[in-house]
C-alpha cells in the first residue's frame, strides 16, 4: 500500500473517529441529562463548543511546554487511533498498526498524559499539579487490573498482536474473549472505568475544588485541541477494548455500536455512582479488580 493511500486512509480514520467521538460526547451528555430529567444539551453541542473554542481570538501562554502540552496530548490520541487496527481484515483501516503491537498501544497511552501533565505543570497553577498528582496516582492504580486483564488475554492467545487476537475471535459471539475469558473481561471492564475520568473516578477533575484540575489554565484553541483529543482518545481506548474483548469488528457499522455500548458502560456507572476520593479509588482497585485479575491469570495459567 502506497504511503499516499495510507495517509489518506489515516485522515479518513481520524475524520470518522473524531465525529464518532464528538457525537458520543454529545449523546452521552444528553443521556446524562435525561437521567436527571433535564432536556440536556443538543447532541451536536460538542461541535459548536469545539468551533467556539477554536474561534476565540487571544491565547495566553506560559512557555514552550505549556504550548506544546495539548499537542502532545492530541498526538497521543491520534497516534493511538492510528496504531490500532480498527477494522479487522481491512488493510486501509489498519493504518500504522504494523509499527507495533498491543504493548505499543498500552504504553503510548501515557504519551499524552505525560505531555499534558508537563504542559499544565509549566503554567505554575498549583491546582493543575494537584490534579495531575491525583490523576497519576489513580491511573497507576487503575492500570493494575488493566495490565492483569490484558496480560491474561495475551497469555490466552499467546500473542501480542491485536490483529491476531481479533482474528481468533471471529468465529462467533461466543468466541469473544469476554466469553472465553470472562474473568479478564470483567476485570478489564472495571479497569476501563478508571481510565475514563468519569464518576466515581473523576475527582481528578473536581471542578469546584481544583477548578477542573490539570487543564485549569487551558483555554481557547488549547482547550480546543484538548477537546479534539477528548473526542478521539476515549474512542480509541474503547476500540482497543472492543478489539481485545469483544471480537473487534469487520466493518465500521459493527465497530461503532460496540464502541458505543462499551462507552455507555462507563457513562451508566458514572451517572449512578458518586465520587471516590483518590485514596479510596486506589484502594478499590486494589481489592476486587486486582483479585479478579489475578484469578483470571491463575485460571489461564492452570486451566
Amino acid at each position, binding site marked *: 500500500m502506497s504511503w499516499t493511500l495510507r495517509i489518506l486512509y489515516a485522515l479518513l480514520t481520524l475524520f470518522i473517529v473524531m465525529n464518532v467521538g464528538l457525537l458520543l460526547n454529545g449523546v452521552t451528555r444528553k443521556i446524562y441529562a435525561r437521567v436527571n430529567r433535564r432536556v440536556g444539551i443538543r447532541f451536536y453541542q460538542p461541535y459548536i463548543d469545539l468551533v467556539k473554542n*477554536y474561534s*476565540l*481570538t487571544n*491565547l*495566553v*501562554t*506560559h*512557555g*514552550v*511546554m505549556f504550548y506544546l502540552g495539548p*499537542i*502532545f496530548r492530541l*498526538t497521543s490520541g*491520534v*497516534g493511538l487511533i*492510528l496504531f490500532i487496527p480498527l477494522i479487522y481484515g481491512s488493510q486501509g483501516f489498519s493504518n500504522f498498526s*504494523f*509499527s*507495533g*503491537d498491543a*504493548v505499543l498501544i498500552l*504504553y*503510548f497511552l*501515557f*504519551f499524552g498524559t505525560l505531555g499534558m501533565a*508537563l504542559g499544565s*505543570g509549566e*503554567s*505554575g497553577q*498549583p491546582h493543575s*499539579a494537584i490534579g*495531575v*498528582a491525583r490523576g*497519576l*496516582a489513580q491511573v*497507576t*492504580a487503575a*492500570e*493494575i487490573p488493566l*495490565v*492483569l486483564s490484558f*496480560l491474561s488475554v*495475551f*497469555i490466552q492467545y*499467546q*500473542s*501480542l*498482536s491485536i490483529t491476531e487476537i481479533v482474528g481468533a475471535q471471529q468465529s462467533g459471539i461466543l468466541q469473544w474473549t469476554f466469553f472465553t475469558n470472562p474473568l479478564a473481561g470483567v476485570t478489564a471492564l472495571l479497569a476501563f472505568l478508571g481510565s475514563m475520568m468519569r464518576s466515581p473516578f473523576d475527582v481528578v477533575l473536581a471542578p469546584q475544588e481544583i477548578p477542573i484540575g490539570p487543564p485549569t*489554565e487551558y483555554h481557547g*484553541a488549547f482547550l480546543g*485541541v484538548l477537546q479534539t483529543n477528548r473526542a478521539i482518545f476515549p474512542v480509541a481506548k474503547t476500540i482497543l477494548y472492543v478489539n481485545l474483548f469483544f471480537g473487534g469488528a469487520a466493518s465500521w457499522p459493527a465497530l461503532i455500536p460496540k464502541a458505543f455500548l462499551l462507552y455507555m458502560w462507563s457513562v451508566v456507572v458514572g451517572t449512578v455512582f458518586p465520587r471516590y*476520593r*483518590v*485514596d*479510596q479509588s*486506589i*484502594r478499590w482497585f*486494589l481489592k476486587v479488580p486486582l483479585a479478579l485479575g*489475578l484469578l483470571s*491469570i491463575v485460571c489461564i495459567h492452570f486451566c
Partner: protein
Amino acid sequence: MVAMFNPIYFVVAGLAAAFLLTLFHNRERLSYFIMIIALSLMMLISLAHLASFLAGTGEIVQVFTAGFAPPFSINFQMGPPEALLTAIVSLVGLLSGIYLSEQLRKTGAYAQAVYIVLVMGMNAMILTRDLFNLFVFLEIVSIATVGILFLSRSRTSVNTGFTYMVASGLISVVLLIGIVFAYMNAGSLNIDTLSESLVMAGRGGSIAVLLITLAFLLELKPFPANGWGIDLYTSAPGALSALISAGGMSATYYALAKVLPVGQWSHDSLVAAVGGITFIASQIIALKQDDSRRLLGYSSIGQIGLLLVVLGFSEALGDRRDFIAAGLLITHALSKSILFYISDMVQDDSLRGWAALRRKPVLLVLFGVAAFALIGFPPFPSFFAKWDLILLLNGGTEGYYLLSAMVLAGSLIEAVYLFRWFSYALKLPHEDLPELASPTSRLIAPVTAALVLAGASWYVSTLVSGFSQSFLIPVAFILLVAVIDRLPAWSKNVISIAGVSLYIADLYPRIAGDLMTMIFAGIFLVGAVLTLLSGFYYKGRRAGFYPMALTMFAGLAALIEAATILEFFWGWELMAIGSYFLLIRGKKSMPHGLSYLLFSIGGSYSILYGFSLAAAGAGGVIAMSSLVGISVMPALAYSLMLLGFLTKTASIGVHIWLPGAHGEAVADIHFMASAILLKAGVFGLITVLLAMGSEAGYTRWILLALGWIGVLSALLGNISAAFQESAKRLLAWSSIGQLGYIVWGLASMSHLGWLIALGYSVTHFLYKGILFLAIGGIALKIGTPYMYKMGGLIKRMPYSFFAVLIAIITLSGVPPLVGFSAKWITYNLIISEQLYYQGFVILIAGIIAFLYLFRMIYTVFLGQLKDNLRSVGEISIWFRIPMYLLLIVILVLSFLPNTLLRPIGDMLSGIFPEEAIVWTGSRGVTSLGYFDGAMIMYVIVGIFVILTILFLLLRKQTQKVKQFNIFYSGEAPSRPELSHFSYNFFAHYRKAVGALALPLVTGFWDRVTEIIHAVSDFIRRIYTGNGQTYLFHIVLYVVVVFLVQSGGYR
C-alpha cells in the same frame, strides 16, 4: 655480611645500652641518643637478616651460648620467621621510642633503660629456643612493661599495672610448673629437643605441655580472662600500647607457635577454639566501646584471636600457614601501632573525639590506611592473608565451613566499629574540633609504619599465585595522582582522563570480540571518562577526589580483566574502597557512607565465601572458570555469591544503604555511583549466573528467589521513590527499582530476559547518567536536593530540562524512545517464559515509575520559580556536555533500537540458543508480537510535527505571560513558594499504599544491630575493673580449660 649481625647482639645491645643508660642517667640528650642507637642496632640486625632471607641468600643462624650445642646450652635461632618478627618488633620499638622521645626524656634514663630492656626482651623471646629462657624473657617483658607504667606515674597506670603484675605473676606460675614438669619428663628445656622427644608419653608430660600452652595462651589475653590486659591498653601511653600490642603480642604469639610442636600439636584445637572465641567475643565487645584506647585493645586481642585460629589450623592450612599468619601479623602490628600513635595525639579519648583528626589530613589518611588494612582490603597483606585463610579453611579435605563463616562474621563486626569510628573522624559534625597534639616529630612514627605497610603490601602481592602484577599498575597510577594531589583539579582531571583513555586504548583490542565484556567495559570506562569530564566543573584542588575515583575505576577495570577469582575479588574490594570515599564526600553522608561500606563488606564476604567454596570444588584452582559447576555445596556457594552481588545492585533487603549514600553524594559522584557502580553488581550477577547455568535442580529455587527479589526491588523501589522529598534520594530509589528490572531479567535465565537485563544496563546508564548529572548539577547549583525548594527552573535551565525530559520519557518506557523496547521485550518475556506473577508486578512497577518521574520533572523544572532562583544560570557546561553526549546516544538508539538489541541478541544466542527476536531492519519480531522502532518514531514525530504546524497556522494573538498570571480565584498569589505544589506530592497515594513503603527492611537491620549491640553490652559486663575479679578469671580459666582438655584424654 650477615654474620656481622649476630642475633646475640640483640641481647648484648639491649643490656649494654641499659647499663650505659644508668651511667648517663643525668645526661638527658646523651641517654636518649644511646637508647635510639641501641634500638636502631636491633633494627639493623633484624633487617639485615630479613633482607638476606627475602633475597633468598639467607641461612638459618643458630647461636649457642656458652659454646655448647643444644640441648646443653641456650640457643638463639634466626630463621625467616624470626627475622620477620624481630624486624617488626624492632621497628615498632624504634618508632615508639622516637614517638615517645618527649616522655622518655622527661621520665629519665631509667625509663629509657627499662624501655630498651622491654624491646630486647621481646626480641629475645622470639629468638630463643629454650623454654626456661623463654620464661625468663617473658618475665622481663612483663616486668619492663609494668616498670614503664610505674614510671609514668599516672594513677590509672599504677592501678592497672598492679593487676597486670599479679596476673602475669600467676601466669608465670602456671608456665613455670609446666616447664618443670616438661623437664621432668623429657630432661631437656630445649624446644627442638623437646619436640623430638616423647614428652607427651607420660601423664605428667601431657599436663606440662597443656600448662605451657595455657600459659602462653593466657599471655595472649584470651577472652574472657583478659581484663587485666585490656586495662593496660587503656591506661598506658599510646606508643607503649603500640609496642605491647604489636611487639609483645607478636613475640608471645611466636613463642606459642614455638611451643606447640612440643606437644606434637596435641593442643591445636584448643588454640583454635580459644582463638575463635576470643576473636568473635572481642569484636562483639568492641562494638559497644566508646573509649578509643579500649577499643583498640579489644581489637588487638581480636586480631590475636584470629592469628590463634590460624595457628590452631596449621594442619589444614599447610604450607600457607606462615604466609597467612605473616600477612595478618604484619598488618596487625603496623596498623595497630599507627592507630595507637594517633590515639596519643588525640586528646579526647572518646571515639567521637577523633574528629580532631580533621585538623591534620595526613593523620586522617593514616587512620584510613590502618582501618582498611585491618579489615583486609586490598592492597594490604591482610587481604591476601584473609583470602588464603578462607579458601584453605573451606578448601581442605574437611571444610571448616562454620569456622570460616565465623571468621568472616567477626571481621564484619570489626569493620562495623572501625569504620563507624573512621566515619566519626571523617564526618562527625563537630562544633569546635577537639585539640590535636601532633608536632611533626610525632608524625614520623605513624608515617614510617604506613610506608612499611605499603612496602609490605607490594611485596606480599608478589608472593601470591593467581594474581597478576599488572593489577598493580593502576594502583601505581593512583599513587601518582595521590602524590600530585596538591595540583589544581583540572590538571589532575586531564591526567586522569588521559590515564583512563590510555587504558581504554590498551584494553579495547583485548576485548574487541567479546560483546558482554565490551558492554560493561563501556559502561565502566566510558562512564569514567564522562564523569571525569564533568569534573572540570570543579575549581580548586578537590583534594582526595581523584585518587579515590581512580581507585574505583581501577577496581571496575579489574573486574573486567580478572582472570582469576582472586583478581575479581581484588577489583571488587578496590572498587568498594574507592566508592566509599567518593560517597562520603557529601555533607551529611556519615551514616550513609558507613552503611554503604558495611553492606559492601558484608556482600564481599559473602562473595568471598562463595568463591572459597568454588575454589574448594575446583581443588584450589582459582581461575574464573572454577565458578562453573561448583561441586562443594553449590547451592550455598551460588546463593552467597548472588547475595553478595545483590548488595551492590541494592536489591530489596540489602538496599538500605543506597538511598542515603546516593542521596548525599554530590553530582558527578552520584552519577558514577549509580549509573556506573551499580552495574558492577550486575556484572557480578552475570558472571555468577553464567557459571551457574540453570540445569541443576537447585537453580530453580535460587532463580525463583532472585526473580522475586528483583521484582520486589522494582516495585518497592519505585513506590518509595514517589514519596521522596529529595530529588537525589528519589533517583536513588529509582535506581533500586531499575536494578530490580535487571535482576529480574537475569533471573529468568532466558534469551529475552538477558536481553532486557543488558539493554537496561545500557539504557539505565544513559538516562540515569543524564538525570544524575542534571539533578546533581542543579542540587549543586542551588545548594539543596529538596524538590520543594526548587521549581520553575525550566525558565532558567531549558537545556537541562530538555535532557531530563528525554531521559524520563526513556525511563518510563513511553514510545517512541528506546525505553519502550525494553517494555515490549518484557511483555514478550513474561508470556513466553510464563513469568506471569513476577511479570505482572514488574509491569505495575513500571507504571508506578510515572509517579516519581512526573513529580521530579514537575517540582524541579515546572511550577513556580522561586525568588532566590530567579538569577540562577544553566548548570555547568561540563555537566551538560556529558549529558548531551548521552542524550545523542539515546536518540540514535531510539531511532534504531536494533543497533543495540540485535548484537546483544546475537551474542546471547551463544548462551541461550533460542532465536528470540528476528530482526528485519528496524523491525523486530518475536513469536508473540512485533515492533518497529524507526516506524514508531516516524509516525509519532510525524503526527506531532503536523499537529504543531497546524496549531501554529491558527495564528492566534498569543501573549506570553509570567508565573503569577494564573487563575487564583480572582486573587493574586502572594509568594511563589505558596503556589508551588510540591511537598508530600502523592499524599493520597501514601494514604492508600504507603504501607508498602514502610521502612520494614531498615527496621529489620536496625533490630539486628540493636541485638548485637545488646549482646555486646551484656558480655562486656564481665570487665568490672576489679583486679581481683580479673585474677579470678585467670584462675577459673586455667581450671576450666584444664578440665576440658584433660577430660579429653580419657
